[in-house]
């Protein structure tokens, strides 16, 4: 079982590189194939099924002994098969949870017993037995070796004329066939993932050339390759760039933009660094995002292109379809060539197998590569046929972009082929090469029934008037649109473009129906991208102006779903969506003069809610944050904060929290008196709302005035009391974050102490996720700047967990922990505990941490430790290599590190012996170098701490120099 995997490890390193199998469609497909092979083994090869493996396959099973029935001796925790080998050992034995299997017959039975958990068992078996062939056949047949030619195996057999060897050999063959089959199978998966090919690119460029030239009507002024030489594989990129998947480079001059130098690569199309002037060399570096094809790229870059393209569209798409049809053929050919090339080495084996095992079903399934040529021609013929058919109906063709028609064309062809296949009764081989347009469909050849039902509904959307359309839309809504099958089915039958086209009509009912569906299916990330690719966003943005409130709401909600990725957010902004969304927030304006009173009716509130929801999604991009602010969004958001509708407040606060990362927002939030409302909503019942409010406070409380405002509006008490509920970790992280930032102000710390927050914080030092820990420790670090709190933390037993956290790896956490430990170390009594827990050594070893922030923070923390430890000098010397490490840090080029290390050296040097050691390590020249370049600047720094450290350092240098002088003369 699973012999192939030893081979397959070569081609799916990603899937099999780790110890467990990843759950990918490819792996699943492979496992299914293996299961099929093993399950049918007992019937197809009864003789071989009895063969006893050299070593048992062992793994941990999830099966319960009670699942085994007749043919097995079952006890509570063990199972033994009645079938035994010649020594009387059972061929299958289980002692929960371990299972040992020693023949294919038993493996087949086991899979039958496993029923639904088949896949799991197979996976567990393969994960546990990385080289099953060796276990089954013995070391001699190890397939991991490269020389697994038949000759070798034949040699073996002729040498020892043992009947078992013959079976062994047969098994070897069978497993090898499986191996090849799996290779072929997975190749198909892999070949689907390549998106652009030289032929496709070439066709696109030629077609665009056809529509380029002087004049207003053309799509481009010019489009040219940078190189005239075309390699035999269709690429024009130099070979060393082809390695990176690059196909060719084109210079494009659109009407309205400067000449663009573009790289076409297998991953897509992007802007490169352009031609360097002198030598005509190309700067290959990527300068833009990657687009899926040339047309999409140009549409994004040139408005004129986009405009003229849509004018040409009808004419163009016809043309494109023809090209598309031609494109299909070479694609197939390429896939065929790939498939042929790879298993070529195994082919001789294969042909031999056919002679030896004529009966075997397997061989038949492995044949198709011989028939490629014929099927390709067949296809060409068919696509031509389709073309003429399409031309007949030409008048009815919908307007749609080329990439879209591609998929639809494939679908049309697919169904056409189905019919033809039935008629001509063509062989099963053509089934093998027929590749459905989408991988997900390939995994399960039987399409779910929803697929056909949805296809039918889409037909009505296309060919019906508004009555039929509304009916079809309403019944489509009845499908479980949260399910991926349905979402993709709508897309794959071409429903997405129809739904988007409907948004462009005057029919309000159709628009509402369409948006209701788009809103649901746009939860799927793929669909989001498709909607953007099909140009859905500008249309939805336009709908935001509609007088129909429900329509506006639906459009905004859909935008909120779609704008979850960067390109979509940018599209919303570029089409003026941000301004329109901000306008939705204006309740008073929405309901006209009637609602001049601040009372908005429920539907206006809903409009505002949807607008805020969309802005929340959009606000993840910096440019959008700016756009929201410029559109006057902040006062409107502030106004909405006064409502009591939780479902409005959440997106509003969410948006504010997102935007508060910008300084301009923080200032505005202060000015618009937003803090007051954030504080108020901390006491809301809704956990999500509390979380976002705390998060917003966390973002804003970097500012001192804001921290004071939080206190003045009574925000500290609710924050402290929220600490007691630790089940919701997201909220806890936000709350502790807010507390951390607020406790930067001393007055706030006093309040927190009053509310017993410090004790609670100490309690949170264990068993919390890192996001929470960072904030808790940060807050404690701030609190411990005061004597009372240091005592408090010690009395609550906070030192031990803090020191324990010094061994972590999270950078942010380490920075905070070192700071907190340093703050505690100011207290001699706490210092004793730290010393006892070996905290100083831990701090010292953090000087080796790769992150400069951690290094610096650790060095700062060492200062009070050295000051307050008993026998500090002895302690420091006890760290082997510690002093050298510190001195060497003076070579760092990070100012923060330098400053902190200088401070540490100041303290270290107070001990005579240590001073001698660091002198030996060459501290003086290093320091004097710093004194010239850096320390003098630092003495003039506005940061008092830095000033002090730098000045202390200079005085130390002087003392050091004096000491050395003295030593020289005595």
């Amino acid at each position: 079982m699973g012999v192939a995997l030893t081979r397959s490890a070569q081609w799916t390193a990603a899937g099999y590189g780790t110890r467990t199998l990843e759950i990918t469609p490819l792996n699943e497909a492979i496992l299914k194939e293996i299961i099929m092979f093993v399950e049918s083994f007992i019937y197809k090869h009864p003789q071989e099924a009895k063969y006893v493996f050299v070593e048992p396959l062992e793994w941990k099973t999830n099966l319960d002994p009670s699942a085994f029935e007749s043919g097995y001796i079952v006890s509570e925790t063990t199972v033994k098969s009645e079938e035994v080998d010649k020594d009387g050992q059972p061929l299958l034995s289980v002692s929960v949870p371990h299972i040992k299997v020693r023949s294919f017959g038993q493996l087949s039975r086991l899979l039958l017993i496993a029923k639904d958990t088949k896949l799991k068992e197979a996976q567990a078996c393969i994960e546990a037995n990385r080289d099953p062939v060796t276990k089954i056949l013995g070391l001699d047949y190890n397939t991991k070796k490269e020389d697994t030619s038949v000759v070798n195996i034949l040699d073996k057999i002729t040498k020892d004329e043992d009947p078992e060897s013959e079976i062994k050999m047969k098994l070897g063959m069978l497993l090898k066939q499986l191996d090849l089959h799996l290779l072929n199978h997975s190749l198909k998966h892999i070949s689907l993932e390549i998106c652009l090919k030289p032929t496709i690119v070439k066709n696109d460029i030629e077609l665009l050339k056809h529509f380029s030239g002087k004049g207003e009507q053309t799509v481009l002024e010019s489009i040219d390759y940078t190189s005239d030489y075309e390699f035999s594989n269709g690429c024009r990129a130099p070979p060393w760039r082809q390695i990176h998947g690059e196909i060719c480079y084109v210079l494009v001059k659109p009407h309205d933009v400067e000449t663009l130098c573009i790289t076409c690569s297998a991953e897509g199309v992007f802007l490169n660094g352009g031609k360097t002037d002198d030598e005509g060399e190309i700067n290959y570096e990527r300068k833009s995002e990657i687009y899926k094809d040339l047309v999409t790229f140009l549409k994004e870059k040139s408005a004129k292109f986009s405009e003229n393209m849509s004018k040409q569209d009808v004419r163009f798409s016809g043309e494109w379809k023809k090209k598309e049809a031609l494109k299909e053929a070479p694609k197939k050919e390429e896939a065929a060539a790939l498939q042929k090339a790879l298993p070529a080495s195994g082919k001789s084996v294969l042909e031999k197998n056919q002679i030896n095992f004529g009966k075997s079903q397997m061989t038949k399934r492995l044949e198709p590569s011989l028939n490629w040529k014929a099927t390709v021609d067949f296809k060409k013929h068919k696509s031509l046929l389709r073309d003429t058919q399409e031309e007949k109906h030409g008048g009815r063709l919908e307007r749609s972009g080329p990439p879209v028609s591609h998929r639809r064309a494939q679908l049309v062809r697919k169904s056409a082929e189905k019919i033809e296949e039935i008629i001509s009764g063509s062989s099963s081989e053509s089934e093998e090469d027929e590749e459905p347009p989408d991988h997900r469909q390939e995994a399960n050849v039987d399409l779910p029934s929803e697929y056909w039902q949805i296809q039918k509904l889409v037909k009505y959307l296309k060919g019906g008037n508004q009555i039929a359309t509304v009916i079809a839309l309403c019944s489509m809504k009845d499908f479980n649109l949260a399910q991926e099958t349905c979402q993709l089915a709508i897309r794959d039958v071409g429903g997405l473009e129809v739904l988007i086209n409907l948004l462009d009509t005057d029919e309000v009912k159709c628009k509402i129906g369409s948006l209701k569906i788009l809103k649901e299916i746009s939860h799927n990330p793929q669909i989001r991208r498709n909607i953007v690719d099909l140009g859905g966003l500008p249309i939805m943005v336009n709908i935001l102006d509609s007088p129909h409130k429900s329509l506006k709401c639906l459009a905004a909600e859909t935008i909120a779903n779609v704008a979850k990725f960067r390109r979509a957010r940018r599209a919303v902004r570029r089409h003026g969506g941000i301004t329109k969304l901000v306008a939705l927030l204006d309740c008073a304006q929405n309901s006209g003069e009637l609602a001049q009173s601040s009372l908005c009716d429920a539907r206006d509130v809903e409009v505002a809610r949807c607008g805020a929801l969309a802005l929340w999604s959009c606000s993840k991009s910096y440019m959008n944050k700016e756009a929201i602010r410029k559109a006057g969004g902040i006062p409107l958001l502030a106004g909405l904060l006064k409502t009591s509708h939780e479902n409005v407040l959440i997106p509003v606060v969410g948006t504010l929290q997102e935007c508060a990362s910008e300084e301009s927002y923080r200032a505005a939030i202060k000015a618009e008196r937003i803090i007051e409302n954030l504080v108020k909503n901390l006491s809301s019942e809704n956990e999500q709302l509390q979380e976002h409010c705390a998060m917003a406070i966390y973002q804003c409380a970097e500012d001192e005035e804001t921290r004071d405002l939080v206190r003045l509006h009574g925000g500290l008490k609710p924050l402290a009391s929220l600490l007691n509920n630790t089940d919701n970790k997201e909220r806890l992280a936000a709350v502790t974050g807010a507390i951390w930032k607020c406790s930067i102000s001393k007055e706030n710390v006093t309040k927190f102490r009053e509310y017993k927050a410090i004790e609670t914080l100490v309690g949170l030092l264990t068993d919390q996720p890192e996001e929470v820990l960072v904030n808790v420790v940060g807050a404690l670090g701030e609190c411990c700047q005061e004597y009372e709190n240091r005592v408090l933390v010690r009395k609550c037993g906070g030192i031990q967990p803090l020191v324990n956290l010094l061994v972590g790896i999270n950078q942010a956490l380490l920075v905070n922990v070192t700071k907190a430990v340093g703050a505690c170390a100011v207290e001699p009594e706490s210092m004793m505990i730290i010393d006892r827990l070996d905290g100083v050594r831990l701090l010292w070893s953090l000087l080796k941490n790769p992150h400069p922030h951690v290094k610096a923070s650790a060095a700062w923390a060492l200062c009070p430790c050295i000051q307050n430890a008993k026998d500090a000098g002895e302690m420091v010397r006890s760290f082997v290599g510690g002093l050298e490490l510190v001195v060497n840090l003076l070579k760092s080029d990070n100012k923060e590190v330098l400053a902190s290390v200088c401070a540490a050296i100041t303290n270290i040097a107070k001990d005579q012996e240590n001073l001698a050691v660091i002198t030996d390590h060459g501290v003086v020249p290093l320091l004097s170098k710093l004194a010239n370049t850096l320390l003098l600047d630092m003495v003039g720094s506005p940061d008092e701490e830095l000033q002090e450290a730098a000045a202390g350092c200079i005085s130390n240098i002087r003392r050091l120099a004096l000491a050395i002088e003295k030593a020289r003369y005595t």
Partner: protein
Amino acid sequence: MAAYFFNHLRTFCVVAGVLPWSHSVGHRVVNSGISGNPGHIGLELGYLRIVRCVEATLGMDQKTLKKLVESISNTVKNFKKSEVECLLRLFHSLVERANVRLNNFGLDRNAFRAILHSIFGMTDDMLMNRVFFAFDKDNDNCINAKEWVKGLSVFLRGTFEEKLKFCFEVYYLNGDGYISREEIFDMLKNSLCQQSSEEETDEGIKELVDITLKKMDYDNDGKISFADFEKAVKEERLLLEVFGPCLPEAKNCIDFEALAFRHILTSSF
């Protein structure tokens, strides 16, 4: 009284010339297909007619009118008395224009359809017939004053429940209280683009009928009862006018009210 009216009518006529929507009149052609948008030509006709209608009401018997207003106002709650009066005057003049027969004072089907088309922007002949039958409660093939006001109350001010009932009445024709499969077929038969053959189109419509029944026939008896209809529409408001538009669009209603109740608004200033 007459003088009072006359005065206002004069101002009305002057003002009407610069009505906000009058400038957009007549530039667009009624388009068929998916955007069966009521064109503005119809509106203009309706507007002209109403103007003339209200002039004609001057000759009406004041006493009879008052009585009628009283009795109708008792049953139709959606309108104020003054509004009912306006509607009645309008009705009278519409009837007068459409050659009255003495024994059967009211609007016949053709006259009513003309109104539906020109004032409320409806386009589908079959549906307009059905709306006529829904207005004509006493089945005398003629809409009398009371039916007129009642019908309009649903059109202009109907609650969701009233509209629901009205639409259902429009859609079931033979009076058995159900919308049958055949009726649905009849109403949907023009809803698909002509495909290559008639059979194919028929087949497509049959399937559409099945889809509709699957969606709306909750008790699976092969026809849509009022309970079915109500449940389906409450679940999805888009299904209110599922078999074709039979209620005027909001914009048409607003325009109509602005016009019909114009002198109430003017006199209140």
